[in-house]
C-alpha cells in the first residue's frame, strides 16, 4: 500500500529521476565520459536503498527549479541550502551535508574577516545562498554561472573574492596546485552552517519520506561518511 503510493509519485516508474547542474566539482562533474561526484554517487546509493534505479538529468540552475515544479525530475541534488523561502515552494529531505561557508581570496588579500568585504566585487552564483550572504555583508555581487568562472575572475584579479563552500575550493586547489588563492573560514556566528538537502516537489511527500529513510540507512551504515571522505577528504555530513 504505502510503497505503491510513493512510486506513483515518480516521473518514470522504477526510476529516481535526479536533476542537477553537473558543472560543480566535486559535487557533480564529468570525467572519463561519465557523470561523477559526491551527489551523483549519493543519488545512486539513495535510489538503491529505495529499490529504484537512478537517472541523472543535468541542466541549468533555473531549469532545476522550473523542472521540479513541472515534474520533470523527482528530486534535485545540487548542493541546495535549505532556506525558509525555499521551504515555501518545495519540501526537503533531512540534510546530507552541513556546509560551512568560507571566504576564497587572492593569497595577497588583506581581507581578514567577512566584515571587510563591503564594497568588494564578489562573483556568486545567481540566486544562491552565498550570493544572498555576500550581499548582506555589503559586497558588490556580480553573477557567475559556474564555480570555475568564479575562480577565474578572482585569479585574474577582476574580483576580490567570493563566499563559497570550502570543500569546493579544496577540491579545485587539489587539481590546480599552482594557484594564487587561499581560503579562510567564516565563523558560524557570522554565517550559520548551511544545511544541504535533497529538494522535492510539494506533491511528493511520500517520496520524500522514503528518501529520508534511505538517507538514514546510508548514514547508519557509514556510506555517507565514506563518500564525503572520498570526495571532500573530510566528513562534512555531520552537524
Amino acid at each position, binding site marked *: 500500500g504505502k510503497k505503491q503510493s510513493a512510486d506513483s509519485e515518480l516521473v518514470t516508474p522504477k526510476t529516481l529521476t535526479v536533476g542537477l547542474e*553537473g558543472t560543480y566539482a566535486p559535487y557533480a*562533474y*564529468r570525467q572519463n565520459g561519465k557523470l561523477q561526484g559526491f551527489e551523483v554517487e549519493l543519488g545512486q546509493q539513495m535510489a538503491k536503498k529505495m529499490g529504484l534505479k537512478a537517472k541523472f538529468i*543535468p541542466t541549468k540552475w533555473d531549469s532545476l527549479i*522550473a523542472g521540479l515544479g513541472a515534474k*520533470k525530475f523527482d528530486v534535485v541534488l545540487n548542493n541546495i541550502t535549505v532556506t525558509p523561502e525555499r521551504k515555501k515552494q518545495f519540501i526537503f529531505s533531512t540534510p546530507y551535508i552541513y556546509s560551512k561557508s568560507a571566504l576564497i581570496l587572492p593569497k595577497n588579500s588583506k581581507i581578514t574577516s567577512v566584515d571587510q568585504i563591503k564594497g568588494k566585487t564578489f562573483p556568486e552564483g545567481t540566486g544562491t545562498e552565498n550570493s544572498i550572504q555576500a550581499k548582506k555583508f555589503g559586497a558588490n555581487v556580480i553573477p557567475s554561472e559556474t564555480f570555475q568562472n568564479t575562480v577565474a575572475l578572482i585569479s585574474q584579479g577582476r574580483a576580490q573574492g567570493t563566499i563559497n563552500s570550502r570543500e569546493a575550493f579544496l577540491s579545485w586547489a587539489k587539481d590546480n596546485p599552482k594557484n594564487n588563492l587561499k581560503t579562510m573560514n567564516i565563523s558560524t556566528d557570522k554565517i550559520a552552517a548551511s544545511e544541504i538537502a535533497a529538494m522535492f516537489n510539494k506533491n511528493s511527500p511520500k517520496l520524500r519520506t522514503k528518501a529520508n529513510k534511505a538517507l538514514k540507512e546510508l548514514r547508519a551504515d557509514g556510506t555517507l561518511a565514506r563518500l564525503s571522505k572520498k570526495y571532500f577528504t573530510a566528513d562534512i555530513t555531520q552537524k
Partner: protein
Amino acid sequence: MWQTISDSLPQLIAAGIKFTIPLAIISFIFGLILAVITALIKLARPKGNVLVKAIWGILDAIAYFYVWLFRSTPLLVQLFIIFFGLPNIGIQMPAFTAAVITFSLNTGAYASENIRAALLSIPDDQWEAAATLGFNTRQTLFKIIFPQAIRIALPTLSNEFIGLVKDTSLASSITILEMFTVSQEITAKNYQPLLMYCLVAALYAVVCSLLSILQHYLEKHANRYIKRGES
C-alpha cells in the same frame, strides 16, 4: 593539453552526433514545412464569398501573430516556456520533443519571411505565363514558382540552418545533453574552460564550414540556369 583534448573530443563528438545534429536536421525539416504554409497563408488572397474571406482573415491573423511572437522573443525563453510551462496546462512531453517543437516553430517563423520574400521576388509575369498556358494554382506553384523560389531562398535558408545548428547549444537549458553542456560538465573537473570552449568552438566551426561548402554546391546547382556574368 593534448591529453585533455583527446579525452574530451570523443565525448563532445558523441553528443554532437546524438543530439546536436539530429535536433538541427529534424527541426529544420519541420520548420521549413511550417514556413512554406505560413508564407502561403500570408501571401494568398483567395477569391470567394464572405465566409471564405473571413476564415482566411483568421488564418492570416494567426500567421502574423505566430511570426511576430517567435521573432520578437529570445529563443531561450521560448524553449523554457514550451518545456516547463506547457505542463502547467496539461501538455507534457519529453525534452527532445519539446526542443524539436521549439526549434521548428522558431525556424518556421524566421524562414517563413525568407520564403515569402523569395515567392514575392518571382515576377507576376511567371504567374501570368503559367495562367495563359492553362496551369491551375497548384500546378503553377509546384512546377513554376517553387523551383525558382528555392534558388532565391537558398542562401538565406542555409544561413538559417547554420544558425539553427549553433542555437542548439541553448537546448542545454531544457535538460538536453548537447555538445555545449557536455563541455561544461567536463570543464567542471578539468578546470580548463578556455581550452574546452575553444574545442567546442572548433567543432561548431567545422560543422558550419562543412554546411557552407554544401550550401555552395547547392547554390551552384540551383543557379545552373542563370547566365554567368561575362568575365
